[in-house]
């Protein structure tokens, strides 16, 4: 019964890798927007710094979405870090304040009663703040002295895509709430977006927030579903399948802080130093940095597979689960009707050249901070 399956799958995979891993080097002026649930020198911050320090990239702005923390916390983190690295020229936009269907914080206890404790809580583990200048506790890097732009993140995304048709790459490295609103509010931008990179989903592995769902998509399942079902020209996904197989350790930290000091390496020393001093074997994931890495250097991706992708929005134990439809005996990419109506075919990162990845990562973290936009 399964006789033909392996051969067909292998040829499909081989074709996919050949086609997809073909390098499309970032041109000299790649315009990007980072839509992130920014933390303090977390993976979102590293992804931001990677883009800031890439000569090929023009960073149009940072849009803030609640996820790892509430929008107010994330805004403070983004502003303050841009300030510390001397890039106050990069605008920061606050967007939505809660997931599409509203915060589930008030009844999260009820969800956990039925579906077990949530491993990664993000913002739900903290109280809301009234302002980015009045958080529940003083940020370790201090409050920013600069302010976010007045424009809403959603409108900024729409305006930017229209201003630079076919040129803007979106990094959706938090929950997809802002992007979902942008494509529903202004669907005319969809064909004008160059491509979208997501960090999110657990495609072939258990999730990290619940056994079913990865955090970003668990935090706002409806938004993830809207975004992923949008017929963008090209969508890349960095799921936990790859992201939680790679570890940032003292080895990488040492390489960064042994370089000549810059505002970025100073942050590493200040914020990661005590941790490695306390526990040299400490290690952590670098999720979002993978998305920026394969954008900046597509040849790093050693395995990109194609999937039709969807998110379960049934409010139950599988809420936010990613579903990746691969080719099988009764589903062929040649006939899109074999896949759920409305889903899109996306490229999913499953393997990366780790040594070259860390070289790029450390290179970008240790360069002198690019001083202005180009």
């Amino acid at each position, binding site marked *: 019964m399964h006789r033909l399956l392996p051969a067909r799958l292998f040829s499909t995979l081989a074709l996919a890798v050949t086609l997809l891993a073909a390098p499309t080097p970032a041109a000299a002026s790649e315009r990007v927007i980072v839509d992130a649930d920014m933390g303090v020198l977390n993976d979102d911050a590293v992804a931001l710094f990677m883009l800031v320090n890439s000569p090929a990239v023009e960073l149009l702005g940072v849009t803030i979405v609640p996820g790892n923390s509430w929008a107010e916390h994330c805004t403070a983190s983004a502003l303050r870090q841009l300030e510390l690295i001397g890039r106050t020229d990069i605008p920061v936009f606050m967007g939505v304040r809660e997931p599409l269907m509203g915060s589930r914080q*008030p*009844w999260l*206890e*009820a*969800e956990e*009663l*039925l579906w077990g404790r949530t491993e990664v809580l993000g913002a739900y583990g903290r109280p809301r703040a009234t302002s980015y200048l009045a958080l529940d506790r003083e940020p370790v890097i201090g409050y920013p002295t600069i302010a976010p732009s007045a424009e809403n993140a959603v409108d900024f995304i729409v305006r930017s895509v229209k201003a630079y048709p076919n040129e803007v790459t979106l990094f959706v490295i938090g929950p997809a709430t802002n992007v979902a609103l942008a494509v529903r509010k202004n669907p005319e931008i969809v064909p004008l977006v160059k491509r979208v990179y997501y960090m999110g989903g657990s495609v072939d592995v258990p999730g990290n927030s619940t056994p079913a769902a990865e955090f970003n998509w668990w935090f706002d399942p409806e938004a993830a579903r809207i975004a992923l079902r949008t017929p963008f020209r090209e969508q890349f996904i960095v799921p936990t399948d790859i992201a939680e197989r790679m570890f940032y350790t003292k080895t990488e930290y040492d390489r960064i802080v042994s370089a000549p000091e810059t505002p970025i390496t100073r942050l590493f020393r200040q914020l990661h130093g005590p941790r490695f001093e306390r526990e040299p074997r400490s290690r952590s994931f670098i999720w979002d940095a993978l998305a920026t890495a394969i954008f900046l250097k597509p040849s790093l991706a050693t395995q990109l597979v194609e999937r039709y992708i969807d998110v379960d929005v049934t*409010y*139950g134990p599988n809420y936010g689960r990613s579903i990746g439809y691969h080719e099988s005996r009764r589903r062929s990419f040649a006939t899109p009707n074999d896949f759920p109506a409305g889903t899109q075919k996306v490229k999913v990162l499953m393997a990366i050249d780790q040594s070259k990845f860390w070289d790029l990562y450390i290179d970008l973290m240790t360069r002198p901070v690019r001083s202005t936009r180009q």
Partner: protein
Amino acid sequence: MTHRTVLLGTLAVIATLLTGGISPAAQAQARKRVFIDQDGAALGTDMISTLAMLQSPDVEVLGITVTAGDAWVKAGTAHMLRMLELTGHGDVPVAAGAAFPLINSRDLATAWEAQYGEFSYKGAWNPSRYHEPTVVPTPPTGETTLKPIDLHGALFMIQQIRKYPGEVTLWVGGPFTSVALALGLDPEIASLAKELVLMGAGFNVDGGGNHRINGRREFNWWWDPEATRIAMSAPWKRIVITPVDISVKTSLGDDVKRRLAASSSPAAQFITRYHPVGQGAGYMWDEISVLAFLDPSLITRQQQLFVNIDISHGAGYGQTIFVEDVVPGTPIRPRTMPSWWRVATVQWDLNLPKFYDHFVELMSRTRARQ
């Protein structure tokens, strides 16, 4: 219809003709055979409606299954037996049925409330009087000396429906769990029964359900939505529903209680003792179902509808769903609906004075059963 039934029926007719009157045998034959499935709050509608059915000289109650709902099944069975004992119906066999809903649970209900708001009524899960399902607190009516039969309520139901093919009215005054179990074990009972008559569901009434503002979340159905889906999708020959909409038009008020207090019948005395005058009035949820079964002319308005239940685990879990696809006087069009939908006759309105008269008369009877 089996040959045996036809033969007996024919013999009965001949006997009547020959004797020029109703022989005891013919009378027994004419009585409606009913199997009761009830939940068992110690007092109130579960007990009084069951009593009403037992009081009728036109009914032969084949047995009673007690299912968890208003009370846990062990407590409910004890309540039922004690009521039978006090009212002279101790010879009716009672079996304990399903102890827990198929999927619904106290935890699910608690989580639902955190998300959508508090229920006003949760039966055996009501926090004010909660006890563990294995515990049987002393009933307000006292301890019974009677015992349930040694057969599960679902099996007892199957046994009795199979014993009289085509003749048994299954009357359900509680949740459907035992019925669903019986249907799982023996799917043919739906078509072997004469009909399904029940109190449950709610349609267009803003009150009386187990949510303050939503009468579509009727308790019996909400307690076990999945069992309701199973039972309401089975191929019964006929389904009659007494919904919340009509329940809230009735009450066991002081006028009725005063009339009952004048009777010395054990049934009337039971009500008088546990529902004294001046102690508030409750809706007569299940009693309407029984009395309308005994005399369909009590119902002044009813309608045929496709009726079922929402089993998706969201805000609407356990709510009645229905399709009004019937123009009066025209045949129903089942082709417009997926095959699991069933048409039910839904009662909307009743002749209230006649209802209360019948009720008092029935409860005042001293020697009901043969």
